[in-house]
């Protein structure tokens, strides 16, 4: 079972090694002539103002929270897709579809509420 993941771990290892090799290689091979302006933090081409540690608006948190809710919803839907054939074979496809539909409707209520309240408008 774990042996099936051999290629996966090889690819993972290669990706990590490659990432570090490129970073290290660029640092070793490339010319390094730093000056004050080059070392300034990049902020969309503007001169950075103030510190990076300012308080963020709670609006960002709302977006992240809603993202998580629907992320978890998809996680729950994935096993349904994976075992769909088996449900059809067992002849319970419609019942399971009903269960999933109720689940999605419950979450859709939240989405509708969010849209009505303007939670997705970023003003």
């Amino acid at each position, binding site marked *: 079972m774990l042996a099936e993941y051999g290629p996966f*771990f090889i690819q993972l290892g290669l990706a990590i090694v490659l990432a570090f090799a490129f970073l290290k290689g660029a640092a070793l091979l490339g010319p390094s002539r730093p000056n004050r302006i080059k070392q300034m933090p990049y902020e969309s081409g503007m001169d950075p103002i103030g510190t990076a540690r300012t308080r*963020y608006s709670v609006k960002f*948190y709302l977006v992240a929270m809603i*993202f998580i809710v629907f992320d978890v919803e998809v996680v729950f839907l994935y096993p349904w897709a994976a075992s769909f054939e088996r449900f059809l074979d067992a002849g319970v496809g419609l019942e399971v579809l009903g269960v999933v539909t109720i689940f999605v409707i419950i979450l859709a209520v939240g989405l509708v509420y969010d849209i009505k309240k303007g939670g997705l408008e970023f003003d």
Partner: protein
Amino acid sequence: MAAQILFFLLATVAIAAGLGMLLSRNPVGSALWLVLNLFCIAGLYLTLNAEFIAVVQILVYAGAIMVLFLFVIMLLNLDVLPEIKDIEWKKVFGFTLGMGVLGLLSFVVASSLDILPNEISARRAAEVGSATSLGEVLFTQYALPLEVIGILLLAATIGAVMLAKRKPV
């Protein structure tokens, strides 16, 4: 054998990342150490043949939950962390040791009472851990808990909107 090597490799990196999270003096750095730790835990799930849980661990924890953590760090503006030398190492050491002894004693008591779960074969674990067999029970036997989870997620959505989208009075 390969699984054992992988286990110890991942466990070492996981512990190192956990220590990195605790000792990093930059809150965002701590969060990134935690990401590494969560990835290692996902790898450990893979060595236990629980592939679905492993993928969900990366998707939900390393992906979504970490985004929330980072936002909370940004929102709370955590600037002042105690210096490494100001941490009360005696308390930390004592707590760690105490929890270790508690775990060991619990294990001994549980194994002498014979209430530990039986060891299952790798083949059976892979069967149970796949998304297919999980879906088979989740949407039939555990359909009601699934809907309750839906309501919980709904409550989370509405709660977040209520708190963050309060109209200025």
